């Protein structure tokens, strides 16, 4: 344990209002703490700067998964286990269930939260591709009020977010998919469990009359932040399943991604495998 304990203090607000007020008092000096599965690792390794934490774990307003008005709302403190155990999530968002199951192992899934997964802003996080594929919106809250940001505009660069220092991620809203849907999720990790993604791809498509009427593809680990594959999507929209331009989409994908090489995979590996996984996804889509 390399963290120096006396350097780390914590505030434990009893309510959401108190939490927001504390954040507003001295914006940027408090670090929100949810399940701790990202923060505690950095802290244990002695790589976290001395800070004061704001423990969110007792704020019930940030919990719960609810369905209303054609969308599902996930409180920021929803854990991966909450996602796995919710029947409605299985019904509407199979990719999110797969993301949750692919995150670490059970002990991590019991503690790690959706809000933390987003706000940690790792390009290798596993729920963001699914959230991007489902067209999620993030609800941000501060004493100044609440606002919603389309999730595909939330990440602005490596660990840069559209999130002010006095704001919390309060909830994630995901519209319920309609029509004849296609759901695809694939994580290529360093091993079969307890693994960090080297490539992650999630997609959702609506098919009408044998044609791709709607499509979103989310990608992880191939850019400074989770991204949509907009070029590839554009090539595929409106195309007939029988004649999907798979190679053209794979070529367009290269304009979407900007992978780097690190200790987990080379840039070349990431780029080839993303292309292959897209091909795999499209061959499955073609058989819908």
């Amino acid at each position, binding site marked *: *344990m390399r963290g120096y304990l006396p350097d780390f203090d914590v505030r434990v607000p009893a309510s959401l209002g108190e939490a927001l007020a504390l954040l507003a008092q001295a914006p940027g000096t408090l670090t929100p*703490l949810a399940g701790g599965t990202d923060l505690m690792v950095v802290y244990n390794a002695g790589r976290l700067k001395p800070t004061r934490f704001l423990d969110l774990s007792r704020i019930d307003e940030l919990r719960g998964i609810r369905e209303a008005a054609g969308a599902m709302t996930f409180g920021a403190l929803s854990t991966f286990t909450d996602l796995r155990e919710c029947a409605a999530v299985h019904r509407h968002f199979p990719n999110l269930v797969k993301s949750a199951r692919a995150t670490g192992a059970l002990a991590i899934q019991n503690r790690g939260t959706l809000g933390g997964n987003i706000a940690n802003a790792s390009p290798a996080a596993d729920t963001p591709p699914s959230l991007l594929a489902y067209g999620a919106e993030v609800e941000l809250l501060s004493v100044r009020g609440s606002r919603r940001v389309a999730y595909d505009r939330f990440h602005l660069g490596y660990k840069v977010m559209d999130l002010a220092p006095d704001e919390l991620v309060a909830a994630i809203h995901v519209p319920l998919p309609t029509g004849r849907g296609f759901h695809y999720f694939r994580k290529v990790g360093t091993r079969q469990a307890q693994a960090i993604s080297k490539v992650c791809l999630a997609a959702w498509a609506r098919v009408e009359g044998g044609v791709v009427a709607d499509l979103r593809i989310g990608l992880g680990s191939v850019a400074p932040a989770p991204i949509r594959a907009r070029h590839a999507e554009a090539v595929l929209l409106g195309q007939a399943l029988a004649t999907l331009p798979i190679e053209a989409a794979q070529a367009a994908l290269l304009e979407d991604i900007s992978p780097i090489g690190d200790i987990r995979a080379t840039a070349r590996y990431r780029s080839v495998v993303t292309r292959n996984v897209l091909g795999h996804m499209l061959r499955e889509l073609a058989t819908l």
Partner: protein
Amino acid sequence: MADRIDLTLKVNGADHRVSVPPFARLLDVLREDLRLTGTKEGCGEGECGACTVLLNGRVVNSCLVPAVQVQGAEVVTIEGLADGENLSSLQAAFLTHNGAQCGFCTPGMLLSATDLINRCPNPSDDQIRDGLSGNLCRCTGYAKILDSVHAAAADGGAAR
């Protein structure tokens, strides 16, 4: 400078009160303050699972849980699985089927297996692999651990 907090928590059914820094790890509270050294540290990064305990009935990596978040919580550690001298069926099965070699992963493994059997009394190989995938074992190649969990399931579950 962080002030210590008065932490009350229930461990293996007994109430405890300790004064610790708010960011002491649950792992260290258990091992150092309560001297329950059955819970092990293999990595301190949430990866190995040797520090697994049940927190309010769910498996967690105690190296990733700060004291401040377990105020009033219930914790079960390896020391809480047996009933006096009587091993739980999982403990007994790990003993007879060589599920523990060096034994360092064993406390965490047994807690994950206990949780698994509680949720899923007759698990398949794949369900066991999934349930134990956060507990790394370097000695067994997992084969005898799978055998042990199956044997315990056949013997009527985690508790006895």
